[in-house]
């Protein structure tokens, strides 16, 4: 079993404060961030394990002053280098230096097509700067994905978001419904779409995909609370992806730190190969031995691997439970209750909980 990709969270610092940020609530402080030479070794170890892609992300990866060196080191390790950025702090000169260092692809996040709303969800005046950066990226010879996170407050502007991606010359548009981990679960009530919004969104995405075939690819992440079966989270626990946080802790996904009885090992103390192949945290939910019923005897267990362990923990308090979004799960009623509230008429929660920056 080899990892396809390494997600490298090189810093948790970020000038944005997005209300659905996937970073953990407890973030790694600047003082604990790993040095350039340690990351360089980690990239080589990941490539030796079989990883072909590295996603440099954060926080905001541009906040690292050594980003150019990190890109060069990842490319030298024979990895495909993707930068996942808000664009804030990325000047034209800096971008060109990253491209010279071997950057293959840039994924630029947008919060909305409407500037005031985008800035509200980001907790920062970032939208205009993103637009300016996109105009520069479109003229460069790197892959360009525009990522838009969608939810209750912006799904009604989906057509405008697609039009914006077309206008900005993206090769690919990722329309991702909010996943409820990290900061998003704090704002779940304000973010959860209605059934009507979801149905309209699915139909609109299909129409745009057909219309833009061969020009711009659209990938769609549905909101899994509305699904009948759970998502194959990360392609299965410890099967194809690993994430390394700013301080060097290696996790099977963005959210796994919420699972209380797991201990994650650090690349500064152990070889990455040992962590991937043998460490207790990566072994814990691999394969099928851990599965309860109804997963254990379910025909879909090879497709969805029992769903998401973090979601099971967050909703039921038990990381071993069947993902409660599954219609066969004993705890599906917990998800149905959230959906029922989202579709009932009534007052909305008043205030956003904004992501704060680490120390």
């Amino acid at each position, binding site marked *: 079993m080899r990892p396809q990709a390494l997600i490298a969270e090189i810093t948790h610092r970020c000038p944005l404060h997005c209300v659905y940020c996937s970073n953990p609530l407890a973030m790694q402080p600047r003082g604990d961030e790993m040095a350039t030479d340690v990351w360089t070794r980690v990239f080589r170890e990941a490539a030796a394990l079989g990883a072909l*892609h590295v996603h440099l992300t954060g926080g905001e990866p541009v906040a690292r002053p050594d980003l150019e060196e990190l890109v060069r080191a990842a490319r030298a390790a024979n990895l495909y280098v*993707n930068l996942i950025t808000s664009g804030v702090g990325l000047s034209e000169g800096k971008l060109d230096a990253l491209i010279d260092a071997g950057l293959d692809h840039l*994924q630029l996040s947008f919060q909305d097509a409407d500037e005031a709303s985008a800035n509200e969800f980001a907790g920062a005046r970032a939208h205009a700067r993103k637009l300016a950066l996109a105009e520069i990226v479109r003229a*460069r010879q790197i*892959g360009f*994905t525009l990522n838009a996170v969608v939810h209750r407050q912006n799904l009604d502007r989906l057509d405008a978001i697609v039009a914006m991606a077309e206008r900005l010359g993206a*090769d*690919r548009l990722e329309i991702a419904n909010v996943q409820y981990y990290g900061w998003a679960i704090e704002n779940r009530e304000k973010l959860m779409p209605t059934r009507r919004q979801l149905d309209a969104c699915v139909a609109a995405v299909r129409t745009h995909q057909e219309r833009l075939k061969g020009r711009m690819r659209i990938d769609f992440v549905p909101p899994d609370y509305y699904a009948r079966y759970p998502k194959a989270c990360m392609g299965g626990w410890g099967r194809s992806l690993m994430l390394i946080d700013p301080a060097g802790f290696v996790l099977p996904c963005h959210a796994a730190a919420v699972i209380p009885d797991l201990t994650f090992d650090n690349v500064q103390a152990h070889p990455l190969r040992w962590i991937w192949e043998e460490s207790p945290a990566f072994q814990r939910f691999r394969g099928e031995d851990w599965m309860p019923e109804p997963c254990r005897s379910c025909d879909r267990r090879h497709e969805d691997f029992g769903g998401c362990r973090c979601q099971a923990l967050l909703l039921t308090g038990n990381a071993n439970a069947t993902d409660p979004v599954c219609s066969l799960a004993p705890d599906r009623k917990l998800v149905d209750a959230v959906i029922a509230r989202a579709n009932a008429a009534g007052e909305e929660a008043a205030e956003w909980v904004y992501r704060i920056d680490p120390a």
Partner: protein
Amino acid sequence: MTPANIPRLARGCRLSEDPAQGWVLLIPEGVLRLSGPGPRILQRCDGSRSFADILRELGDEFAAPDAALVEAEAGAFLDRLVARRIVVVE
């Protein structure tokens, strides 16, 4: 794919040889594992050679007995990549 078409890899797509995994086509969020003549075709999709040039070079390299079959298979291979926006045609 017509003989005059000039195919090249789309931006953000890169051919790479991995010591353990062989020839792979790295694309945003994915990997295509290549076998047979795939890598040799894509190495020549550099925006300077036409599809006719590529076929001629493949013919020289492999001494393929059936040129029409090579053209049909290489053309279908590239057309599939064009539909996925991995290869673009001038």
